[in-house]
């Protein structure tokens, strides 16, 4: 994976600190909170994998390697749910 972006077919709304989205082909909505919502907001335009991790590392004052380890499974999960597209 070199870059991530939102699937443009996803329908979504912000709701207080949460974000609810309906991915194409999925019956149940997904609700994102905390870092999940932040990741969604950061992907308002396609982002390179490395840049996304670096941004999160800077925001949370963590090592990029730690962020990579924690965030990558989450990104993969959103991809599997049809919310994100990886290129």
């Amino acid at each position: 994976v070199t870059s991530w972006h939102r699937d443009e077919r996803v329908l979504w709304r912000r709701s207080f600190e949460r974000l609810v989205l309906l991915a194409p082909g999925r019956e149940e909505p997904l609700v994102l909170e905390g870092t999940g919502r932040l990741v969604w907001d950061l992907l308002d335009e396609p982002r390179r994998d490395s840049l996304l991790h670096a941004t999160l590392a800077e925001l949370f004052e963590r090592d990029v390697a730690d962020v990579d380890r924690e965030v990558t499974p989450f990104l993969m999960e959103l991809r599997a749910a049809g919310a994100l597209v990886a290129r």
Partner: protein
Amino acid sequence: MTAGSYLRRVAVFGLPGHDAAMREPPGGVWCQPLDASEWRELVRFVRRLRLSGFLQAALVADALPVTEEQRRQASELHLEACITVLQLERTLLALVDELERVGIEVVVLKGSAAAHLLYPDPAWRMFGDNDLLFRSAQFDDALTVLAGLGYRRPATPLRRGFDRRFGKGATLVGDEGDELDAHRTLLFGSFGLTIDLGELFDSSVTFPLGGRQLRALGPEAGLLHACYHAALGDPEPRLGSLRDVAQRFALGWHDPERVVELARDWRAEAVVARTLALCADHLGLHIENPVATALADHRPTRRERRAIDSYVGGNRSHARKVVASLPYLDGVAAKAAFVRDNLSPATGFVGLRGDRPGIAWVGRGLRSLRHGGER
């Protein structure tokens, strides 16, 4: 502080000048959250009027006082409404795909179109159904396509061809129980008869949804539609409908001269004037705009008063609307056809109304006609 005054502040949140409204009344009362019973009342209003998006926006901005528990409840209320809205938008996309695939033009009214075009965040504007506008010539075909997708019509039309000629449209119910309003014009009766329906399509704009572009009314036609809905939709105007009008004025998206021109062409000056007065009465908003300058002081004629009364007065029967509509139709033939089609219901329509519905329906119609004629 009462639920009603709190609700009004919710409904105007984010409009220019709303800060001044928030400061009233003096004495620091606005620093205190609602008590439990007033909060419960507020939640009932917010749910019924679908204002949870504005409540969310106001609370996120810390513009209104609230307890932690009240904030949690508001959050759950909004999340629930968001899920409904997303499901409706998914349905909307599927319907528009099917309709456009067979060449039927579709303009989305209110709901999703308003949420995406008018507000800083679509999460502000909640809605409970989808409203689609079709060209008169394609209306029957559209209903056929929608029937194939599981949308049935609980009430059959008054008479064959009525929909295409005089009807507002049809309310349909889908297999999932979702409601869909299929429109041919923006409203039934007097004011619906004078709208240039071609203009609604010719001046349409688009908004993005789910990776594609859907059509919505253009700024000027959209503003007038918002006025019709706010001024004539309910006897007690809905705050959300008035907010849509105020939002459109605040956006300044429209050409004021064109709005005034359309209002005159569509004989809707009295509707706009009534809307502006309702915004002042119910939202405390005195809209200053060239449209308001031109139309706010419009004095309704007797005919206009009678027409408005048929939508929001004490007698809002179908027959009353028919009588009030006659001056808005040109020519004896059109008037005769309108009366005939409206007072000679098809069997299916009558069949919904009691054991001896035909007689009851005709009787009610005649009584209303006489009443209307006396005024």
